[in-house]
């Protein structure tokens, strides 16, 4: 699952550590999320979407086969 976390974080001028602190996760989790190596849980996706002021669908790009 792709996401726009990295580009939004850079647009908001937020560091990985600041985002990690805001979402109560480690910086490694943010790095893995940005690289697409780890898929966030619904709770973390909701927190991240709230942080950037958007919906989960806007932040995370669901591909067709992932919706099934």
């Amino acid at each position: 699952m792709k996401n726009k976390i990295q580009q939004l974080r850079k647009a908001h001028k937020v560091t990985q550590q600041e985002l990690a602190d805001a979402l109560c996760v480690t910086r490694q989790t943010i790095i893995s999320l940005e690289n697409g190596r780890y898929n966030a849980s619904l709770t973390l996706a909701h927190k991240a979407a709230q942080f950037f002021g958007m919906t989960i669908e806007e932040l995370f790009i669901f591909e067709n086969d992932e919706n099934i």
Partner: protein
Amino acid sequence: MEDFRKKLERKMKILALICCIFPVSFISGMSIFKLKDDFSSGLVLGVCISSMLVTVYCLAKYYSLLHNDEKLKKYYVEKTDERNDAISKETMRTSSVICLVLTIIACILFGFINKYVSIALAADVYLSAIITLIVHNYYKKKM
């Protein structure tokens, strides 16, 4: 965060209790059962000493965490981080499958060398399978 602090305090009390119980139970156990075999008494002593060392280490760690808010927050984030949780679950799953396969292979190989070792390994495989079934059923009902 406050819940986590209380949880750590509770853990500290349990560890302190273990710290008191271990030496007493070891000394009384050694005097009651009078282990004459060097191997078994050495094994019991080793287990007790290593358990005590781990307990004391955990106690010291929790004590320093409870007296430093910054460290406590960092530890809380590390412990509750969902990626760390996913990694530990995946590690447990993969390592248990590898251990099971290796035990089955060892069980078959030891069948040609020593039947007692082979039977012990087979018992381990069956016991693991039974425990897995019980735990699986527990989580099936819970979730």
